[in-house]
């Protein structure tokens, strides 16, 4: 366990660029008018940037330091969990404390858009956390594949799904239903359960990719 926590510490520490960019966006982003975007939304940027560093920067370097693939894999999952918790906590605090003091009439926070705030605020924060965890694991797996043919195939499949499913009404509703389950969902039990299930499935895919990863 000591090795795993050392990896978690290293992964989180070497993610400084993501923290700085996210912090700058949260602090400096402005919008005007009656309806404005909450600056808390920009905290999600951290969830999008982090997997890039874990996959392309940290992996080889940790392996050269003598870490095992198994510890790296578990370390990444724990780090994503910690970051998802942190991002969700910060955005929830911004939603509760800063969004109400905006001079604008309406402040759009993703927690509202996703209908999570219809629940208790703690439950809403948990919904956000598990969704962000899913996003990070998905990106990690997708980025890990990019050096291999099946990564490109997955990219092409994702683009094809968006291109084909969007214009055709019947398929569009399938796509929409999917996002309504994992994201825009007031039913916390269903949403968290689905996010966890997908995260577990994607983690298994990630392990499969890791087992084929060369150095």
């Amino acid at each position, binding site marked *: 366990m*000591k*090795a795993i926590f*050392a*990896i978690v*510490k*290293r992964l989180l520490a*070497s993610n400084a660029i993501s923290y700085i960019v996210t912090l700058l966006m949260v602090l400096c982003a402005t919008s005007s008018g009656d309806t404005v975007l909450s600056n808390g939304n920009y905290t999600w940027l951290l969830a999008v940037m982090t997997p890039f560093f874990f996959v392309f920067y940290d992996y*080889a*370097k*940790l392996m*050269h*330091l*003598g*870490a*095992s*693939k*198994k*510890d790296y*894999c578990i370390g990444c999952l724990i780090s994503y969990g910690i970051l998802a918790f942190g991002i969700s906590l910060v955005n929830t605090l911004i939603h509760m404390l800063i969004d109400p003091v905006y001079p604008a009439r309406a402040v759009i926070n993703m927690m509202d858009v996703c209908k999570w705030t219809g629940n208790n605020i703690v439950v809403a924060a948990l919904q956000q956390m598990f969704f962000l965890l899913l996003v990070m694991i998905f990106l990690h797996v997708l980025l890990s594949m990019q050096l291999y043919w099946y990564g490109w195939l997955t990219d092409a499949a994702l683009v094809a799904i968006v291109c084909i499913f969007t214009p055709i009404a019947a398929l569009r509703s399938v796509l929409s239903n999917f996002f309504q389950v994992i994201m825009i969902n007031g039913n916390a039990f269903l949403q968290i359960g689905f996010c966890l299930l997908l995260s577990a499935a994607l983690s298994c895919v990630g392990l499969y990719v890791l*087992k*084929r*990863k*060369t*150095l």
Partner: protein
Amino acid sequence: MIELSNVVKRYGQATVLNNITLAIDEPSIYCLLGRNGAGKTTLLKSIAGYQNITSGTIQVDGKRISTATLDTGVSYIENFAKHLNLPVGKLLRIASEVNPDYDYDFASEMMERFELDVNKKFNHLSLGMKTMVSTIICLASNKSVVLLDEPVLGFDAIMRVEFYDMLTESFRRHPRIIIVSTHIIEEIAKTIQKLIVIDRGSIVFFDTLQSVETKAFSVSGLQKDVETATKHLHVIGKDAVGGLVTAYIFDDPPEQNASLEIHPLSLLDFFIQMVGHKGGTAR
């Protein structure tokens, strides 16, 4: 213990490892010699589980090795390995944290011996110092198999001597299988116990250094005399200048007589005879 069984590695049409079967079971310092492109790095990376082989099996301590092996028990370092750009002292501490078997005392001692500035960031070190840090991390890992790929690249003469001492010291503390690939043959001879020679993807020699000292000879004389003397011996190479012929043998030397000159081969000469090719064909 390392066991390779019919290992083949192909990149497209090119066969880099050609049906290698090898068992390395004794803890010792082994030297892997081979020309550029002979397959040394591919062999070491395959044993480390950094890449997959096309066919055959590799086992380390009974565990099958491939990229799918999540914990190989092998420590491998290549000469231009990139590390986190942190102060060297911190880098070694992180290495000790991510690897529970790490010998931090050994790493610290070596840092002092090589006068490495613990506060200097890795990317600010010279090539030789970077390689030294990588090598220290690899040797201190305490894994049952340590693979060093061209570790002396970028070292000056004094650093090389220090490195050989470090290798001996590391082995004395923790006897295990250490394989060092290098081109500087004569220098490492004092440190190693066994020699592996790879040529065009095949292992052409695997034996003790002592066997080279007692069995590798050059036999010179008139062609007829040399051919007669070496008729039933294992001839690994031949040179002819005018009417004089030199045969290089790896066998018990023939009986000395007035018409023959018999000299022991240096390690370098032995290596050249084992893998030397002219125009792509064996000598």
